[in-house]
């Protein structure tokens, strides 16, 4: 694959809230995709969004239901594999575009699990299609069904203030949503204004995720979003749902590099509002950062916004 499209570009190509449920939404790419990873672990993709679920002899563990339509289709897909009930739904974080739609699982008795700040967020900004968590935790939680488990790990604010990474066992794959991507971490951010994102903790968070993976012997991640790329003939194709654990390190390096570039520029006396133009015109920034994103990894206007946002972080400390 020659390069990866940004998720922002991907969303420009489709209406995520109105995607056809049974058609190709990009030529050659189905709107819905089910993948089996082994050891009872599956990935379900609905347009650009993806979750994972685990089939066990004692029930099913589902992650982010995405929305009402997606959850209904997911339930049908699970039913094709097992007649076991969904026992747990685990939220990756509190944002509606991932957490909505769980009622269909609640109706069959599933327990909903999330980091405790997600519950506070969901109460503060309620959505009619978001089921509130039944079980919350502070640092980590293990959802167990027989020999299978889903570990939920919290490392502080990142993209919202309750995001967790998950490890599905025994498959031993890490599910990471919004703050990392597969197959590589060198991908432009979907929304460069970094809505509800706590930039000051992104590097420590990703370092903690890397360390967790090292301790747990995890070598593969599953991404919460679809990546797109091009083959050698220039035809668009879906990127892999999985990638090496180094993709998390790459995302951490992405942030370290962009923070360093902005900070260095500001130390030379450049005003925060002038930093984006200066960096985008810099051959050094191009070789140290932009080139690593690849030819499809960034758009200049989008990068301008991200650099301005990082400038605010450097100046305000948050």
């Amino acid at each position, binding site marked *: 694959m020659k390069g990866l499209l940004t998720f922002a570009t991907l969303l420009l190509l489709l209406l995520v809230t109105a995607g056809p449920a049974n058609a190709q939404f990009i030529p050659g790419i189905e709107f819905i995709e089910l993948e089996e990873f082994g050891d009872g672990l599956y990935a379900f993709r609905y347009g650009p969004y993806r979750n994972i679920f685990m089939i066990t002899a004692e029930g099913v563990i589902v992650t982010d239901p995405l929305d009402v339509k997606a959850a209904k289709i997911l339930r049908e897909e699970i039913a094709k594999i097992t007649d076991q009930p969904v026992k747990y739904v685990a939220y990756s974080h509190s944002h509606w575009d991932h957490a909505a739609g769980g009622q269909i699982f609640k109706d069959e008795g599933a327990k909903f699990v999330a980091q405790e700040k997600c519950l506070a967020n969901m109460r503060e900004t309620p959505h009619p299609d978001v089921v509130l968590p039944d079980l919350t935790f502070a640092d980590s939680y293990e959802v167990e069904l027989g020999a299978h488990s889903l570990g939920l790990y919290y490392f502080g604010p990142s993209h919202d203030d309750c995001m967790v990474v998950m490890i599905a066992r025994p498959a031993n794959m890490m599910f990471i949503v919004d703050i990392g991507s597969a197959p590589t971490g060198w991908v432009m951010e979907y929304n460069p204004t970094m809505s509800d994102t706590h930039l000051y903790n992104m590097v420590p968070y990703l370092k903690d995720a890397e360390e967790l993976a090292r301790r747990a012997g995890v070598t593969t991640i599953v991404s919460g979003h679809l990546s797109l790329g091009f083959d050698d003939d220039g035809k668009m194709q879906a990127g892999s749902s999985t990638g090496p654990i180094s993709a998390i390190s790459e995302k951490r390096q992405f942030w370290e590099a962009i923070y360093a570039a902005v900070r260095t520029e500001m130390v030379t006396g450049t005003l925060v509002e002038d930093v984006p133009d200066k960096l985008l015109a810099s051959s050094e920034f191009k070789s140290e950062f932009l080139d690593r994103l690849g030819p499809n990894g960034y758009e200049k206007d989008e990068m301008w916004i991200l650099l301005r946002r990082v400038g605010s972080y450097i100046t*305000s400390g948050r």
Partner: protein
Amino acid sequence: MSRNRQIQSSGHALLLILCISFIPAGYAQHDAASFMAPYETEALGDGLYAFRIGMRRSIFLVGAEGVIATDPLNVEAATIYRQEIAKITDKPVKYVAYSSSFLNHVIGGKIFKDQGATFVAHANCASNLTETPHPDVVMPDVTYTDRHEISVGEQSLELFYFGLSYGNCLSVMIARPANIMLIANLVTPPKAAVPSDPTLANYYLHNLIDFFRSVENLASERGVERVIGSFAAIQEGREGEPQLGPATAAASIIKDQRVFWEEMIGAVQTAFAAGAPARVIPKRIDWTQFSEYAGYDERNLEIMTRRVYSLHRIGR
């Protein structure tokens, strides 16, 4: 992308919120424009003063028992700030009140700490400053959750917290007996404005309208007629020449700024509800409806839609 920094004329006296520096010591500071003093202290009456350095402002209250200062801004600014206070009184600074926890406002307080000042902030600010420490930031000695009052005799400063707004610990303050309200970051006299940072870093949009309504209610209940912000603005004079805008504005600026946000959030909501993807939304909005706001900049407004879109799509 080439950024257009020209001021958009609305046919009225123009107002420019200068590309405001939010920059702590160690980074470039916005110098005062050539037509204005690099710093100045303005008496607002009843013991209340506004200290401006470059494009930033803090306020201080001089009472019989000492001085209450707000945000020290940075090390260099705080040194001048202290000198300016000393020109008015030889009384010590008894209290320093932080408006928020952002480094561009709260760095530099040690000069006041050294003379025994007690530092006051919302409890969330203390948590933030613990989480993201800076060597030149003095930690608050006293924290509060909803309301707190400090006084130096007849003069007092009342601090109020209305939830998430610009950051998670912004205090609205009322200085008495002047009865002037300080609203840092979110309001810049003399008129409602388009924010200078189009990425809306640190804005909690989901509570912003409620926040403004709470502040409006407070101003009404307390009979506040004048509001001061934490930044200066440049406006055009009669001959079109740039001049420093006034430090204060009528309290109606609070409602006007709330209306700006309602219009912005509403415009994006309309396009979002019609199914427009995030990057198409700016093309669906008639930006001329915002042309009367200070700092009107269509490109900035377009960027803001990306942030506002998230409020509708992800809830925050």
